[in-house]
């Protein structure tokens, strides 16, 4: 088609037609505008305002600040507690995410079989997710008591020594990771199950006819097929794991991370600085550092993800 008719059309447009054209062009943006306006108010603005406060010696009550440059950032990066919190956050993240995803994959694989009362079992694994995290933390804190906790009582009955859940670093991380796992394993299992159900059954049949064992079918059919979902699950638990707060905060009565900061996480460090010491300038600096850490981590994950997907594609071509 030539462009002449179009040009003629434009020239002879009535006001009504112009409005109609504007409607077509603008409407989509207007429809998505509410989200971005709300996001701007509750997302972008606080982030920028936090950056502004992080450069000030801020007084929350008087709402005044004195510009001090990047002093808060250098202070935080030199603070022993910050590095301990970073160590704890990654340690708890690894202790929770790794076993969680392994177990979730295993549970999902079992649920993918033809079970009696399927819905019952599937609902069952989701149940812990429905329990409020603070309630979970209360129950588990009680179980992990140093002297009268259920776990140590059982260990003692078996003739083993008590584990000092609130004193030693790794046991405290394991206890907190247990709470996280209790809550999220079933949820991840259901997501993985959904991916597994989408795998064409003839792939399994073909593999079975070729003589692949059940184990071989799992590793050579199931795992490659659910890889994109696995990556999604890993990404979400990374972001969640780096922001872990409820469980460690509810882990003891003061909620400040232990006498030697054994289970202080970055978000707790942020909270303690803001609402414990009312030093909001410094808390804002911590918030930004945490933000940058999460962005960096997400980028790393993004590149790994692309790499894996690319591998998958080239494998398919071969």
């Amino acid at each position, binding site marked *: 088609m030539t462009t002449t008719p179009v040009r003629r059309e434009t020239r002879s447009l009535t006001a009504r037609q112009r409005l109609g054209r504007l409607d077509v062009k603008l409407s989509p943006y207007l429809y998505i505008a509410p989200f971005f306006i709300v996001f701007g*108010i*509750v997302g972008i*603005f*606080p*982030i920028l*305002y*936090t950056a502004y*406060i992080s450069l000030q010696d801020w007084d*929350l*009550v*008087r*709402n005044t600040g004195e510009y001090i440059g990047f002093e808060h950032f250098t202070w935080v990066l030199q*603070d*022993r507690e910050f590095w301990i919190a970073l160590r704890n956050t990654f340690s708890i993240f690894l202790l929770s995410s790794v076993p969680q995803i392994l177990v979730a994959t295993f549970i999902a694989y079992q649920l993918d079989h033809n079970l009696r009362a399927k819905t019952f079992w599937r609902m069952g694994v989701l149940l812990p997710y429905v329990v409020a*995290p603070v309630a979970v933390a209360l129950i588990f*804190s*009680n179980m992990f*008591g*140093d*002297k*009268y*906790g259920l776990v140590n009582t059982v260990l003692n009955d078996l003739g083993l020594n008590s584990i*000092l859940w*609130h*004193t*030693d670093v790794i046991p405290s991380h394991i206890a907190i990771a247990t709470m996280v796992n209790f809550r999220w394993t079933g949820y991840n299992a259901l997501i993985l199950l959904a991916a597994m159900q989408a795998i064409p059954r003839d792939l399994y049949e073909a593999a079975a006819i070729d003589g692949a064992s059940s184990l071989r079918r799992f590793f050579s059919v199931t795992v490659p097929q659910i890889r994109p979902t696995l990556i999604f699950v890993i990404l979400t638990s990374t972001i*969640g794991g780096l*922001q*872990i*707060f*409820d469980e460690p905060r509810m882990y*003891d*009565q*003061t909620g*400040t991370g232990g*006498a*030697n900061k054994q289970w202080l996480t970055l*978000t707790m460090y*942020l*909270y303690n600085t*803001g*609402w414990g*010491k*009312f030093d*909001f300038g410094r*808390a*804002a600096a911590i*918030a930004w550092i945490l933000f940058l850490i999460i962005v960096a981590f997400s980028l790393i994950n993004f590149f790994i993800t692309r790499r894996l997907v690319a591998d998958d594609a080239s494998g398919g071509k071969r």
Partner: protein
Amino acid sequence: MSVSRKASLGMVAGTAAFAIALTGCGGSSSPEGSSSADGDTTGGEPVTLTVATFNDFGYTDALLQEYMDANPNVTVVQNIAATSNDARTNYFAKLGAGGLADVEAIEVDWLPEVMQYADLVEDLSSADVEGRWLDWKTEAATDPDGRLIGYGTDIGPEAICYDAAKFEAAGLPTDPAEVASLLEGDWAHYFEVGEQYQAGGGGAWFESANATYQGMINQVAAAYEDPDTGEIIATDNAEVKDLFMQVTEAAGDLSAHLPQWSDDWFAGLAQSEFATLLCPGWMLGVVQGAAPDTTTWNVADVFPGGGGNWGGSYLTVPSSGENLEEAKKLAAWLTAPEQQLKALAAAGTFPSQTDALADLDAINAAFASGDSPTKAEYFNTDSLGDIFSSRADAVSVAPFKGEFYFQVNDIIQNALTRVEDGSQDATTSWDQAVAEISALG
């Protein structure tokens, strides 16, 4: 949840921006509002006053109704926060921005922080209330310019609670009067009696080094900061280090190593794991709640090293309120001796008012009222009022608590916990605390 934490911080930052505008208005309009003095006559314009408290102040509906009956133009509404910490967060989030209740309760724990913003709350001093409270209670709430920023409600004079059955088994006296004379003396003596108790076959003498240290440090007039300059002196103050070393050494044998308020601590209380407990008046309810089946807890009218106070609250009137005069009147009424005695009966909040403290019969009666078993029945004595009044009289020191008091105290408490749980020895732990304190500010 972690996401919402971040979000709420952002919200605070956001509201802070709007608040600048708000305080701009509030600052200019509220003095005009108070100068109209319409609150001086009862039966004036109808006003609604809000009172914000936390935990249980004992301000029952009946008590508030009494005030409304006497002042028909006033409606009183009470907001109760679940914990002192919630109230603290709310207080400082709104103190500058506006939006606090007309009468706001504060706890002595965060009084030093409120003191930094003394100009944002009303000066409550007046001839009517002069001498109403114990001197040290009033002094703590008076700023350097002589303004009284809070009316005292309750105090926590400390006595010693002890388990008579355990004392008897270890060959110690069991009668409260005899125990009082047995424990009379300084902290070293208290620890000696503990060794005596263990020599007689007893177990742990006290709950933890932390709680014991808290009792000791509350008797030091200027522990962590110089009252004149506000400088941190904790690491140079030999007294602090001495107490730290003394309590950690004693705790080696005598402590049950149960961090206060932990799950283990409550379980330990229920199972009678230790023989003595530092007992402010409000602790009676905690003991009774944790160990309802024990019948052998008693209270002795004694405290090592002289008197000691733990906890207590004040009522403040934030300057951003609209009915400042009416709010002051209500705060003065609520903290009058007669009302405080009613609050004591309702919630066990021990009075800080000298007239109420002098009325021993009324205090004894308040302890003997309420649900069965009453405190008097549970602790096997009719004279809880006498005991705690005498303990309140024994308090002579109002420890200076400045801007850094609670951060320093927190660091030292953590250091004590590290020794208690065996993860560090006393010297290493103290050195770490010194390093942490030096990094403050």
